[in-house]
């Protein structure tokens, strides 16, 4: 019989080892799934994890994609992780991402066709504020009326999508596009563009912001009283109040930071890789970032690696669809396995498994 026994102190070894073991188990279980689908499992795993970076054929295209996809995931996940650590669940980063993009793009387009170098910084600030304001809706409703931030923030995603559709087809539409939906292209206009900073790497201002966010979050969580209070509130809410943490202040702060970072990620995306506001501009980064945050164990350094890994499975997954004809739902199931194994193995850092035999009666 298997028994779980609580460890007196959380295991450091398993805390670090679970992501690695989870990836290996995902490869095994995913390989079985691909084999059942009649595809070569070894080739599929190689195409997903290896080819995007090292294949001569694809790497020149897919290597920059790694940072382009990982950047927003990391930036959003870092913001979310602060709240998750405190037990504040912002599930609506996707909506904050959309609103941040619309606000930032709107700011840039308002000055069109000016090429003033101050426009881009202004767009970043507008993006931050847009995401922040959208996250303040669930925050204020929670602190004032005790509503559930999970539901409110999630439902606001669909409101944001409706606003996005109206912006793309109506009030932000490119007047020169002869009726086609979508805004002017920001990335092809000097002054509003978020360029690739080093050619061939995919590095843009958003990726840089994500790296800075990782460092800042690391310092905040490990060195600063605010980070200590965030951890305390998540682990022992009563002890946090006893220590003097104001729960409402923490809700406003955590939702605000995660919303602002999601908004900034949206702005960097719309002015860079995506280029314009379009109906289907959002591509699920806000939701995937939740997975990234947990995959990285809510730890800034962990999130950095988790974001890169997640981006890799996306690029590799697309490649596998293309090369082996693996259906898209199978790729999503594969990504789901990763989260499943990670959360299931998480138990090991706090519990130890005992193979106890029932004593004879």
């Amino acid at each position, binding site marked *: 019989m298997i028994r779980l026994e609580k460890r007196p*102190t959380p295991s450091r070894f398993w805390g670090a080892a679970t992501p690695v073991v989870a990836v290996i188990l995902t490869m095994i279980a995913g390989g079985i799934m691909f084999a059942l689908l009649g595809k070569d499992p070894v080739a599929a795993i190689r195409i997903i994890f290896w080819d995007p970076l090292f294949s001569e054929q694809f790497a020149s295209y897919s290597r920059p994609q790694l940072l382009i996809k990982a950047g927003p995931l990391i930036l959003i996940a870092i913001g979310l992780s602060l709240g998750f650590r405190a037990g504040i669940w912002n599930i609506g980063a996707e909506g904050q991402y959309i609103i941040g993009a619309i606000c930032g793009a709107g700011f840039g387009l308002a000055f069109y066709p000016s090429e003033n170098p101050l426009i881009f910084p202004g767009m970043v600030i507008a993006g931050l504020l847009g995401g922040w304001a959208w996250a303040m809706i669930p925050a204020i409703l929670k602190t004032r009326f005790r509503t559930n931030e999970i539901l409110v923030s999630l439902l606001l995603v669909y409101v944001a999508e409706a606003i996005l559709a109206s912006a793309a087809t109506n009030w932000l539409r490119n007047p020169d596009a002869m009726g086609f939906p979508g805004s002017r292209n920001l990335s092809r206009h000097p002054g509003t563009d978020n360029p690739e900073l080093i050619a061939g790497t995919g590095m843009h201002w958003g990726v840089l912001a994500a790296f800075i966010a990782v460092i800042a979050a690391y310092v905040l969580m490990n060195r600063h009283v605010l980070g200590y209070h965030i951890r305390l509130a998540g682990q022992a809410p009563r*002890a*946090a*109040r006893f220590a003097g943490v104001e729960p409402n202040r923490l809700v406003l702060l955590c939702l605000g930071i995660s919303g602002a970072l999601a908004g900034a990620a949206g702005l960097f995306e719309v002015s860079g890789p995506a280029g314009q506001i379009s109906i289907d501009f959002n591509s699920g980064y806000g939701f995937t970032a939740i997975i990234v945050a947990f995959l990285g164990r809510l730890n800034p350094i962990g999130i950095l690696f988790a974001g890169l890994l997640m981006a890799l499975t996306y690029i590799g997954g697309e490649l596998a669809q293309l090369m082996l004809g693996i259906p898209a739902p199978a790729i999503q199931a594969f990504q789901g396995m990763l989260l499943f194994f990670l959360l299931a193995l998480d138990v090991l850092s706090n519990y130890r498994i005992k193979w106890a035999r029932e004593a004879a009666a």
Partner: protein
Amino acid sequence: MTALLEIRGLTKAYPGVVANDDVSFSIAPGEVHALLGENGAGKSTLVKMIYGLVRPDSGSMTLGGSAYTPAEPRAARASGVAMVFQHFSLFEALSVAENIALGMEDPPRPRDLARRIQDVSRAYGLPLDPARMVGDLSAGERQRVEIIRCLLQDPKLLIMDEPTSVLTPQEVEILFHTLRKLSSEGTAILYISHKLEEIRTLCDAATILRLGKVVGSCTPREVSAADMAEMMVGKSLATPARDASEPGEVLLHVAGLSLEPATPFGTPLRHIGMEVRAGEVLGIGGVAGNGQDELLAALSGERPVAPGMIELKGTPIGATGPEARRRAGLLCAPEERLGHAAAPDMSLIENAVLTGRVRRGLDRSGFVGWGRARAFAEEIIERFDVRTPGPAVAARALSGGNLQKYVIGREILQAPDVLVVNQPTWGVDASAAASIRQALLDLAQNGAAVVVISQDLDELLEISDRFCALNEGRLSASRPARGLTMEEIGLMLGGAHDMHDIAPEPEAAQ
């Protein structure tokens, strides 16, 4: 008389500790048998084996002459063994009858059950209305629900784990009356406690455990409490002491403090007033659930109140938060160690920052100095003899008593002007409890005002200068602690909760 329950050589080992080592004793029908020992002596493991919750590694038990090996509590109940646990397992939102029905194998129809509950409660002098919500009951009444639940099974052996820790002296009398009646009808009672005077009044025999072994047995009526304490601890205990001193100026002044409870089953505070002077220990007695948690939350700043309701050294501080009060010199140590006074999964270093940040300067412009925090944690560990492998260990890995020493030490080493502690020695073994009490007295000696909220009346009488009682959210006027009798204290505590008219006359029922 042949033994009802006979235990021979019971042994149970857990990794790293032998909880019971070759324990033998026997209980006769109708005997009230005390099981005596400090925390960690192995009392709980022993009764869990008798009740079928834990299986012994070796040894045997016989019940009524035949071999007795309960595989689970249900089997124990079927054999006639019932147990009242220290911590009640009742649903607050259900009625008394519903709670009792939940614990039965096949409950009778609700109407019949209600009648049976009333019959039993009348027969044993334990008044209880089957239709009342458990959430509205006092701790004493909740215990009655548990006892009646057991009595409905008509047990031959009733195990009671620390039953009086939640009762007023008058309620204790009523409980003892019930137990004596049960015993006169032939029900044996295994009574677990570390309150020696109680055991001397109630029990026919006592078995004393220390570190898992039987270290002695005695007839409690014939030996003194001090003798039993020595057998229990293995050494004689120093009584906390200090030099008499004149109280100084008023440090903490509370007036008209009222507070609605945070939860539906909490207790509202009503017009609480008190005054504590420098160098003085004020003891606040009362049965748990009469507003102790709310009072501590109001004093610590977790629940802000109107500014003038609480004054520290003449400054109104009622509306400020915990950090500001610490800065001003008012420190608190709540009852619940894990989750309230300390974060279970954080290390002792991190837990040192929890309350020590402001007064010990553990941060510089918002950045925590972990080196200084570690030094503070090490200082607490050394000064208060906290047994731990080191300061980096998670708080939940410490035993209750050690963590309590850490929590109290953390506040005392911050040199507070006023210290409020709730249940400072709850669940702490006798020698650690003595050192905590001594530390509180030393603090008062050095000019601080100390408020001790406790259910342990012996403790309060030992260390307080003045005593007052908290009953249903109201605080009585304080009286000098010296010379107070248990009778007077019981009356201050509000006597037995709604028992005055129904309680049987002790003599008449015999």
